[in-house]
C-alpha cells in the first residue's frame, strides 16, 4: 500500500542537536546540509548577478566605481554559481537520494562524505573573503592568463590566489564525493537491484561521478600551474618566456566542458524521476536513456576546444563534428521524456511543473548551442551575449529548474511535510517569466554584436531596450525566491504531513518513513524491476524484460 507506515512513529526520530548536525556522517543530514549551503551561495551569486544587471540596465557607469569592480562581480557570480551552487546542490540531492534509491543504509564512506561536505562552506567563505582582502578575482570564472597571471597590469592581488586555492579545495571535495558515489553504487545495492534496475537518477549520478573523478583533477593541475606562474616565477602560460596562454585554455576546458555535463546530468536524472511519477507511466526507453547518458558523458570529453574556436589554435572540424554529435543522445533523451508524458495521466504538481520548465527551457538551450557548434557561426557569436543566453538557458533553464523540481519532489521525504502547492506554482511562474525576460533578449543582443563581460556600452548601439528588459527579468527572478523561502518556512512548521509516499512514487526512497530512520529501511520490498514500489503496490513483481 502506498502510505502505510512501514516503521512506527517516524516523528519520534530525533531531529538532532546542533552538535549532531555538525558531526554527523549520516548521508541524509549531510545531503540536507549540502542543499542548504548550496542554496545560500545561490542567493549570494544571485545578488552579484543583480549588481551586474543593475549596472547594465542603462548605458553609463552609474553604480559601480569602476570597471574593475564590475569584473569582480561577474567573475564571482559565475564562480559561486558553478562551483558552490549547481555542482554541490546536485551532489546534495544525490547524496540524500542515492543510498535510499538503491536500498543501502548509507554511502560507502560516511566520514569522507562529511569531509566533502564541510570543504564546501570553507571554500565558499574563502571565495567571499577575497572581497575583504583587497578585491576578489576579476579575470572571469575562466581566469585566462595573461589577465589572471601576476604582474602589475594583470591580477596582482591576493584575490586571484584565494580563488585558486578555494577552487582546489572545492574540486577535492567533488572528487572525494565522486569516488564515494561510485563505490556506493557499485558495491552497496540491495539484492535484486541489478545495474539495469537502478533509477535513472542513480545512473545520472553514476555517469556524473565518472566525469567528476576523471575531469576535476585536470582543472586542479591547471590551477596549480597558474598558481606557480603567479607566485613562483613559473613560465607555463607566458608566451614571452616560452610558455603558452592557449595551453591554459586547453587544460582548463578539458575539465570545464565535462563540468557542464556534471551540472546537467543529475538534473536530467531528477526530471526522469519526476515525469514518470506525475504522468503515471514508466519512463519511455529506460535502457536507451542510460546509453544516451553514457554517450553524452563519453562524447563530452572530446569537445572541449569548441570554447576556443577563435584562438586560431584549434583543430576545428574535429571539435565541431563531435559537438554536433552530442545533440544525438541529448535528442534521444528529449524524445524519451516527451513520450513519457504522452498519453500519461498528468498531475500538475509543482515538481512536474518545474520538470516541464526544464524540458522547454533546456530544449531552447540545446538549440542555440547547436548554432554555436558551427564554426563560422561561432566566429561571429563567440564572446557575445549569445553565449550568455545559451549558457543560462542550459544551466538555469535546465539545471536550476531541475534542481527545484528535485527540491519540491523530495522535500516531503526529507522533512515529513509537504510544501505548499500554491506558493510553489507562484515561484515557478515568477521564475519562468523572469528567466525568459532576462535571457531571451540576450539572443538578440548577441546577434547585434554586444560583447560579454563589459561594464558599459554605447548608448547609440541599439542595445538599451533589451538590456533594460533583461534587468527587469532579473529582479523578477529574485522576487521568486520570496514565495520559495516563505514556503519552506511555513511548511516546516505547519505543512501537511507527508507520510511515507505522498506522490505514489516508483522508487525505494518512498518505501520508508518520511524522514527515514537513521538506518534507512526496516524492510525492503522485492526488487524485480526499475519500479519496485510500483510493483509492490500493484501486487506483482516484474516489468517485462527485466
Amino acid at each position, binding site marked *: 500500500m502506498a502510505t502505510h507506515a512501514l516503521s512506527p512513529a517516524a516523528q519520534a526520530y530525533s531531529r538532532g542537536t546542533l552538535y549532531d548536525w555538525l558531526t554527523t556522517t549520516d548521508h541524509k543530514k549531510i545531503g540536507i546540509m549540502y542543499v542548504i549551503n548550496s542554496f545560500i551561495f545561490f542567493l549570494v551569486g544571485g545578488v552579484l548577478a543583480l549588481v551586474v544587471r543593475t549596472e547594465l540596465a542603462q548605458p553609463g557607469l552609474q553604480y559601480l566605481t569602476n570597471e574593475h569592480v564590475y569584473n569582480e562581480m561577474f567573475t564571482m557570480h559565475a564562480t559561486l554559481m558553478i562551483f558552490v551552487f549547481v555542482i554541490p546542490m546536485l551532489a546534495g540531492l544525490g547524496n540524500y537520494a542515492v543510498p535510499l534509491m538503491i*536500498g*543501502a*543504509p*548509507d554511502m*560507502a*564512506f*560516511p566520514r*569522507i562524505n562529511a569531509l566533502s561536505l564541510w570543504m564546501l562552506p570553507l571554500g565558499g567563505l574563502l571565495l567571499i573573503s577575497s572581497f575583504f582582502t583587497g578585491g576578489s578575482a576579476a579575470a572571469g570564472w575562466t581566469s585566462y592568463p595573461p589577465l589572471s597571471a601576476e604582474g602589475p597590469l594583470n591580477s596582482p592581488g591576493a584575490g586571484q590566489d584565494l580563488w585558486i586555492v578555494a577552487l582546489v579545495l572545492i574540486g577535492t571535495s567533488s*572528487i572525494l564525493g*565522486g*569516488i*564515494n558515489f*561510485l*563505490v556506493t553504487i*557499485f*558495491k*552497496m*545495492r*540491495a*539484492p535484486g537491484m541489478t545495474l539495469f534496475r537502478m533509477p535513472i537518477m542513480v545512473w545520472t549520478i553514476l555517469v556524473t561521478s565518472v566525469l567528476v*573523478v*576523471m*575531469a*576535476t*583533477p*585536470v*582543472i*586542479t*593541475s*591547471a590551477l*596549480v*600551474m597558474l598558481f*606557480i*606562474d603567479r607566485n*613562483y*616565477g*613559473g*613560465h*607555463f602560460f607566458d608566451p614571452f*618566456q*616560452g*610558455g*603558452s596562454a592557449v*595551453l591554459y585554455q*586547453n*587544460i582548463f576546458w*578539458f575539465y570545464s566542458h565535462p563540468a557542464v555535463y556534471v551540472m546537467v546530468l543529475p538534473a536530467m536524472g531528477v526530471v526522469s524521476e519526476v515525469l514518470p511519477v506525475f504522468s503515471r507511466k514508466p519512463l519511455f526507453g529506460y535502457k536507451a536513456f542510460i546509453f544516451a547518458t553514457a554517450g553524452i558523458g563519453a562524447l563530452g570529453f572530446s569537445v572541449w576546444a569548441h570554447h576556443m574556436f577563435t584562438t586560431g589554435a584549434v583543430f576545428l572540424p574535429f571539435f565541431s563534428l563531435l559537438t554536433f554529435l552530442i545533440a544525438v543522445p541529448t535528442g534521444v533523451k528529449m524524445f524519451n521524456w516527451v513520450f513519457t508524458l504522452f498519453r500519461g495521466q498528468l498531475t500538475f504538481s509543482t515538481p512536474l511543473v518545474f520538470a516541464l520548465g526544464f524540458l522547454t527551457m533546456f530544449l531552447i538551450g540545446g538549440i542555440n548551442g547547436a548554432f554555436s557548434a558551427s564554426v563560422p557561426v561561432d566566429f561571429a557569436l563567440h564572446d557575445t551575449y549569445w553565449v550568455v543566453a545559451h549558457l543560462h538557458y542550459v544551466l538555469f533553464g535546465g539545471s536550476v529548474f531541475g534542481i527545484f523540481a528535485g527540491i519540491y519532489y523530495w522535500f516531503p521525504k526529507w522533512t515529513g511535510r509537504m510544501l505548499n502547492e500554491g506558493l510553489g506554482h507562484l515561484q515557478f511562474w515568477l521564475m519562468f517569466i523572469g528567466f525568459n525576460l532576462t535571457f531571451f533578449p540576450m539572443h538578440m543582443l548577441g546577434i547585434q554584436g554586444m560583447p560579454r563581460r563589459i561594464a558599459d556600452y554605447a548608448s547609440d548601439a541599439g542595445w538599451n531596450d533589451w538590456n533594460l528588459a533583461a534587468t527587469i527579468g532579473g529582479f523578477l527572478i529574485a522576487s521568486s525566491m520570496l514565495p520559495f523561502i516563505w514556503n519552506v518556512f511555513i511548511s516546516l512548521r505547519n505543512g501537511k504531513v507527508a507520510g511515507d509516499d505522498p506522490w505514489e512514487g516508483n522508487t525505494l526512497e518512498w518505501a520508508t518513513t518520511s524522514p527515514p530512520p537513521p*538506518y*534507512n*529501511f*526496516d*524492510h*525492503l520490498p522485492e526488487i524485480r524491476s526499475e519500479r519496485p514500489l510500483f510493483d509492490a503496490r500493484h501486487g506483482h513483481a516484474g516489468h517485462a524484460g527485466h
Partner: protein
Amino acid sequence: MTADSHALATTGEHTPLAGLAHDTRGGISNVVLGMLLFITSEVMFFAGLFAAYFNTRASNHPWPPDEFAHILNPFSIILVATIILISSSFTCQLAVWAIRRSDRTGFLRNIAITFVLGVVFLLLQAYDYSLLFEEGMTLGSGPFGTTYFTLTGFHGAHVFGGVIMLGVVLYRGMSGQFSSRHHDAVEAASLYWHFVDVVWILLFSILYFL
C-alpha cells in the same frame, strides 16, 4: 537470509562482516575500490601536468635548452633514486603477501624497509634539487625549469603522502591492528605506493630519455 540481514550485508563498512577484505558477496573491499578510483583521479592530475610538459616541449627548441642539457644525465644520483623507489615497490608487495598469510613479522619488516626507502628517495630528490639550484635551474629559470620542477615536485609530494600513509600502516601494524582477514589499509597503501612508483618510471623515462 531475512530482509534485515540482506540490508546489513550490503553495508560492508558498518557490520561485523566489515573485517573481510572481500565482502560476503564477492568483489573487492570498498576501501580498496575507493583507493583504486582515487588513483585514477591522480592519473588525470598528472595527465594535466604532462599535457603542459609536452605542449611546452613541442614549442621550445632546443629541448633541453643548452645551458641545462647536461643535467639530464640519467646516470647520476637520479638513477640511484630510481632503483631505490623501484626496490621499495618490491618490498611493499612482499609486505602485502606477508600479511595475507599472517606473517606479521615479515609484514612489519618489509613495511619498515619500504618506509625507509621512501624517505631515502625523498632525500636523494632533495639533494638532486640542490645541485640543480646551484646550476641556476629553478621554477623560474625558463619553461624547462618550470616543467621539470613542477612534474618532479608534484611526484615528490605524492611520494611524501605515500610515506605518511606507510608510516600510519607501520604504526597500526606494530600495534597489532592487521590480520590476514583484516588489512584493507595495507592493500590500499600498497596500491598507492605502486602507483607512485609507476608514475616515477614514466616521469623518469619521459624527462630523461625521450
